[in-house]
């Protein structure tokens, strides 16, 4: 199982596009990052809310967890979790 990171987040994972992860649900996968990738974890997790940051979308394979069971969505070996942030660039300036 792995998390796919878009290029703006890769600097928090030593430039890696994907990082191997473990856990039985989305929440556990992300909480496990606190130890293995603390700076990445800080970018993704809202400690106060105890949840993923609201402006991020997390997909398990091609399904948004908002349309599944949110952070309680179960995951299993072979799944790919994708973090998709809102980006605004149209490169006007």
């Amino acid at each position, binding site marked *: 199982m792995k998390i796919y990171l*878009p*290029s*703006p987040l890769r600097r928090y994972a030593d430039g890696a596009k994907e990082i191997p992860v473990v856990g039985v649900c989305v929440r556990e996968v992300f909480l496990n990052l606190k130890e293995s990738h603390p700076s990445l974890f800080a970018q993704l997790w809202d400690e106060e809310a105890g949840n993923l940051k609201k402006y991020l979308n997390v997909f398990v394979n091609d399904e948004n967890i*908002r349309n599944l069971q949110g952070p309680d969505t179960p995951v299993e070996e072979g799944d790919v979790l994708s973090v998709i942030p*809102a*980006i605004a660039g*149209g*490169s*006007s*300036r």
Partner: protein
Amino acid sequence: MKAVKTMLSEAQIIRYSRHILLPEVGGRGQEKLLASKVLLVGAGGLGSPAALYLAAAGVGTLGVVDGDAVDLSNLQRQVIHKTADIGMLKVESARETIRQINPDVQVDIYPEFASADNIERMLAAYDVVIDGCDNFATRYLVSDAAVLLGKPYIYGSILRFDGQAAVFAPPQGPCYRCLFPQVPPAGAVPSCQEAGVLGVLPGIIGLIQATEALKILLGVGKPLIGRLLVFDALAMEFTILKVARDKKCPVCGDAPTIACLSAENYRQAPCTVDESENQR
């Protein structure tokens, strides 16, 4: 064989012959394109390739909205503008280039930035809108206006080596707010000005937007409705992710709370990021 009547001139039949050969377009489809109107919000990285190819394809009317002037730093990717255009209003530079590509195309220029006061007036006259703006406030504004006016909103966004594209056309599918209900806080997401962008990236995403516009105008194929295309240039990977309509969406949901555009809802958050963020 009975001759099929066409509104196309002889020169147009030659100009658009490679379109006309396609059964999905044909003479009727080309006439449809010539009668179509596309509004481009932003004549920058995304708007440039979209405008160039939609003009070449014979989309009859292109509206171009941009209050900026051409800057030297734009030319690495904003291919509708040239070195000699520096200092000129982008809408004027874009109109000049489009005219040189295809005199069939009428270009309506709006030398202003999209705002709650002008977007509905501008968008009302067009069939679809292509979003090539560079900030969240304008994205939410254009998306909301498109929902309220029932116009397909063709989304594209880029940063560094990544791009996203989708077609938002409720009630057929979700709107931009269904996918991104929360505006990122100021400084959370850098802009291209701050974090950079690979020069070819807007070309790829802008042409995906143009492709979706042509498909919608022609009524062919399967548009990117309910699907988000994510492009990773470093890995050269395209990924499609499902996006569902949010019944609680404040603009396209079952009980919308946004029924009109109010300027205070679309204030541009300051885009400052600290130095460490800036290196992302």
